[in-house]
């Protein structure tokens, strides 16, 4: 029972994945989508931690993912590291970068952090484009091997969503730890956090580093699955998309980014492919923001809150809310 109360989001995520699994496994094209969706979900979750919890409006998650992806490519294809060992570097490298930058940007307002992280992302991607010997430059890096025994789209899809569930589990534990509570305080009021003895800069930088490490996992998975990398594979557009996914789903909620990912991806796939797609995309984004300003999770909470006050005291504890939003 305690586990249920403490790990509601993890259990919901597991349930949703189990329910979706038979449908997805029956169609090869959905399996491929499931892997890419997993990559996006990891990126959106990383935005959730960085922006939703630490208040750093990040536009460099694509760049962190690409650092992780190139690390994976170099370790496995060039230096022949055994499977999964490259994951360590793919997480560590972006985390170190993010921690360093975090110390600088944490003093800034969210919009300013957006600009700073955007600049950081641009510097990283320019470096990748010019480091011909290491990254293959503009043309890119081909022939990245699969992860050991994991080879088919089905196996990748399973791995991707196991990673998503693991991140959700870790995220949930983090938010209940002293560190998570500190993040919550400083997001509301930095002055109070300082008065409480929280090292604001360190706390925020650590959260940003964690978010970068998760983006690194996404990049690692992407590199091995797609097997080819180029500077445009995980570019600023991906960073912006991940940010929008997190905000649309509800950046402050653990599961919000995942819901945003699924919705956003479905939406862009339904839009007609042609010159006007950007117009529909833009309008859809505006409409979603108008309807659900705190993200779909926030909207769900409001609706359920309204329904509950209408129904009186019948409802069970809040457990039902994300369940409904997640399904």
């Amino acid at each position, binding site marked *: 029972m305690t586990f249920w109360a403490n790990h509601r989001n993890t259990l919901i995520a597991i349930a949703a994945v189990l329910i979706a699994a038979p449908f997805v496994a029956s169609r090869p*094209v959905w399996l491929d989508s499931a892997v890419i969706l997993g990559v996006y979900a990891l990126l959106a979750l990383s935005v959730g931690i960085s922006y939703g919890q630490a208040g750093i409006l990040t536009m460099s998650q694509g760049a962190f993912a690409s650092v992780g992806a190139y690390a994976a490519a170099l370790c496995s294809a060039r230096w022949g590291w055994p499977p999964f060992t490259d994951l360590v570097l793919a997480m560590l490298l972006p985390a170190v970068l993010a921690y360093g930058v975090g110390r600088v940007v944490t003093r800034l307002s969210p919009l300013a952090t957006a600009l700073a992280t955007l600049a950081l992302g641009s510097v990283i991607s320019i470096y990748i484009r010019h480091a011909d010997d290491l990254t293959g430059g503009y*043309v890119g890096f081909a022939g990245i091997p699969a992860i050991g025994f994991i080879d088919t789209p089905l196996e990748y899809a399973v791995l991707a969503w196991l990673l998503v569930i693991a991140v959700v589990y870790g995220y949930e534990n983090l938010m209940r730890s002293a560190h998570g509570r500190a993040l919550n305080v400083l997001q509301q009021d930095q002055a109070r956090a300082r008065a409480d003895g929280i090292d604001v800069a360190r706390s925020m930088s650590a959260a940003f580093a964690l978010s970068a490490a998760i983006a690194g996992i996404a990049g690692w998975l992407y590199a091995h699955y*797609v097997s080819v990398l180029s500077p445009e594979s995980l570019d600023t557009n991906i960073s912006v998309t991940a940010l929008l996914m997190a905000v649309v789903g509800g950046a402050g909620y653990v599961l919000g980014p995942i819901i945003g990912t699924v919705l956003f991806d479905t939406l862009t796939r339904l839009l007609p492919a042609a010159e006007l797609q950007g117009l529909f995309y833009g309008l859809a984004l505006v409409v979603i923001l108008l309807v659900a300003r705190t993200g779909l999770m926030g909207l769900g909470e409001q609706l359920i809150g309204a329904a509950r006050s209408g129904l009186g005291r019948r409802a069970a504890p809040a457990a039902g809310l994300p369940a409904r939003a997640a399904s």
Partner: protein
Amino acid sequence: MNKTTCKSWRRAAAVGATLGALALPLAAAAADAPVKIGTVLSLSGPAAVFGLPERDAINVVAKKLGFKSPGGRPFELVLHDDKSNPTEAARAVTQVINNDKVVVVVGPSTGSGILAAGPIASRLKVPLIAPAGTMAVGDRKNEFWPWVFRMAINDATSIEFILKDMAKSKAKKVGVLYQEDAYGKTGVDLAKEIAPKLGLEVVETVSAPYSATDLTAQATRLRNAGVDTVFLQVSIAALGTSFLKAARQIGLDKPIYANAGLAQRSFAENVGPEADGLRTLSIGNLPFEPIAEEKELSDLLKADGKVPQGWGEIVGANGLLAALAAIDAQAGKEITGESMRTALEGLCGFRSYARGKICYSPDNHDGWDGSSLTIVEIRDKKMRTLD
């Protein structure tokens, strides 16, 4: 003939057809069903400059053929946007193969898109007809090499062709401007490699991002390096016009040559008198002086309300024609991705909208040699073919 008999005749025919279909072996039934062809092209993003004309040409040619191959086999087109992005390209190719069951894909439009889609094509055993000159696409070391057929002239051939024309003048010292992407970078590297063989020397290179609004500093640097001639490796027309204006302004009065990226109608028409005399490489000259085979394509496009833009249409239309020729090579047989691959490897000299002959073989997936290339000169906002 009265209505009743007509109706009952139809009903009988329908019943007969149904029975016939049931009786026929599966392979023959499959031969009647339309063959599905995937087209994954850049309909948005920077490469849409070429992706949209490719799509337009494929559509008008398919319409003109009544969605039947020259050999009479019905076909269907499935269109996807690769958004000029390799991730999207890989996804779109997976989707058309897995979901729509296409047996061949024309696209993706960009070199990096093809490189990302190659492993998927190889795994799912469906060939790609690739409309890009990027050298890496045709690298024999690629695991997926057997599955990629180039429908464009490779960059090394192209650059040698235009540099040879440059070498005919007295110019020795070459300055290069390239755009900051795979197209620009591979082009400038090849130019540096090929130039010395033709008695030329690349003495200075400058680059510009897509977003550059002012190239006077780049032009000044080339002028100060004392170049005799300038080579433009750009495909963003705005960068081309911007550089020409800058060159005129700062007094860099040297002959300018450009790779095929600038052989676009909108570049020729929008640029001012400073472009007069600029020579650019092209595959044919569809927008202004189409030769016989190109004329037909140009007329088809115009009849459909489209304005011919450049070589994008030629590449796209021939991509479709190659797929159809491969389909006709297997008349009466069941067609799969693997059989398409084998058929494409045996394809030589099919009817195409181009000057040169397109010929694939088990050893050669580059198809086109330099014979379809031509050099056009810009004069009075038009591209004039030089011969």
